[in-house]
């Protein structure tokens, strides 16, 4: 590795090499991520099928394994219809606005101890800032379509996203209070110590247990934040129509890729903040990336499971849950945790 670095620096010069190395790292993160997105769609259709005692896609390739490729090819070949009177450039930029944050946020996600693209101190802040940009994609898509339905759908989704972002942000505040850092790697490492970790059952010292109400709020908020059922008012294909009403072809599929990419992202963040990231659940196993992958997978499957189980919320119920339940609970638990940390029974010393 060092030899390669030396060789590259001699060949390209230090500045160019740094750019090239960063680009290579970005590709190393993004390509597998896109593959995961493709196969997450297959997993979703399979799991929902099984839960409805169907088989799910099984025609394209063995067990339907080439189904995502066929879907991608189909969407690639479809026409992108731009409605007359639509603001063309905004219309085409909106899907990009929605997918870019879901990819950019991976820059600060640590995959293992020290394995992170940008090890910045304000990682959590960056995450909250960059994921908030995603709402622009929704608003601009609804607005630029020149359609009342898309516009109303965009407004509705924006209101939902912003409401749940507050609850999510407040729950993240509690996490950063107890871990005393905004760096995601430090947040994970802070979960690896404590009374239970010393006894070898470190999964009990992860943040989900002492911060349980916040954990519940966060898990529900990320379902709402990624526009997944039962909070998929943005899509609402059967009764209300969402912001991507006028989109077709590749532009439409970008919204879908963005939805699934942010699902994976939110699962990764939940695993890192509450489920101990790459730490192993029992002291007798070594830590490593595979634990993070397993945790992300479990959270993702629970997303799909929830979608297969619950009917869609009514819009006013979504708003009530966000503003009247989650935000007060987060603020209350913030106070409780603050007092707990100052008390002699603090578990975060």
């Amino acid at each position, binding site marked *: 590795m060092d030899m390669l670095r030396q060789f590259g620096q001699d060949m390209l010069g230090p500045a160019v090499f740094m750019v090239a190395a960063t680009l290579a790292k970005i590709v190393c993160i993004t390509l597998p991520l896109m593959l995961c997105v493709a196969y997450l769609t297959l997993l979703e259709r399979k799991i929902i099928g099984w839960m409805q005692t169907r088989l799910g896609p099984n025609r394209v390739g063995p067990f339907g394994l080439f189904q995502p490729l066929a879907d991608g090819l189909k969407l690639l070949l479809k026409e992108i219809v731009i409605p007359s009177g639509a603001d063309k450039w905004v219309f085409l930029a909106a899907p990009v606005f929605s997918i870019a944050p879901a990819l950019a946020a991976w820059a600060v996600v640590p995959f293992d101890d020290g394995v992170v693209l940008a090890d910045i101190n304000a990682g959590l802040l960056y995450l909250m800032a960059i994921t908030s940009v995603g709402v622009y994609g929704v608003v601009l898509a609804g607005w630029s379509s020149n359609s009342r339905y898309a516009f109303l759908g965009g407004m509705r989704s924006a209101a939902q996203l912003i409401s749940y972002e507050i609850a999510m942000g407040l729950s993240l505040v509690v996490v950063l209070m107890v871990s005393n850092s905004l760096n995601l790697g430090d947040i994970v490492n802070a979960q690896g110590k404590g009374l239970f970790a010393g006894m070898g059952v470190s999964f009990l010292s992860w943040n989900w247990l002492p911060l349980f109400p916040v954990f519940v709020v966060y898990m529900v908020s990320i379902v709402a934040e990624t526009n997944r059922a039962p909070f998929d008012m943005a899509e609402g294909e059967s009764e209300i129509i969402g912001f991507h009403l006028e989109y077709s072809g590749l532009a439409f599929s970008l919204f879908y890729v963005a939805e699934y990419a942010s699902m994976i992202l939110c699962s990764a963040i939940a695993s890192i903040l509450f489920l101990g990231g790459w730490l192993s659940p029992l002291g007798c196993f070594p830590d490593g990336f595979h634990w993070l992958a397993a945790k992300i997978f479990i959270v993702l499957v629970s997303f799909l499971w*929830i979608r297969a189980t619950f009917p869609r919320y009514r819009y006013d119920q979504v708003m009530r849950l966000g503003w009247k339940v989650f935000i007060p609970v987060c603020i209350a638990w913030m106070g409780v945790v603050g007092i707990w940390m100052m008390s002699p029974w603090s578990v975060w010393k």
Partner: protein
Amino acid sequence: MSSMKEIFGSFLLRELFGGLAVTGRYLFAPKTTVRYPEEKIPQSPRFRGLHALRRYPDGEERCVACKLCEAACPSMAITIEIAPDENGKRCTTRYDIDMMKCIFCGFCAEACPADAIVETRFYEYSAESRDALVWTKDMLLENGERCEEQIAEDLGRDMKYR
């Protein structure tokens, strides 16, 4: 006290986990999907699929050109033309069934005094043009020859109820 219990219950997502348990059980339940081209669902002996014209064992056509099937057909899918054959016997020169009109009610088979027109269990006859979906006399006779064994068995099983 009960309200406290309610708050704890809703925060532990108790009812939601109940719902999740149901779908979780179904995740491992046996699947009911029939993989169609490889697997087929069982058919009744009275299954009403594609029509067939039958012959007697000596090769003579059963059809006596009485036109009862044409009259019974509610969607007017059957077209028959008649002429005497070389022995002077009434015989159909044309017997077309338009499968785009046919509703597979089985009235033609019920009306037939000679069990000449019947409906077989065969149903995979999709075609790419409308013309190919009009089944002529020759095609129907050929279908009858192909399915005769099954037709005879099914008619035999149904005989005591007629």
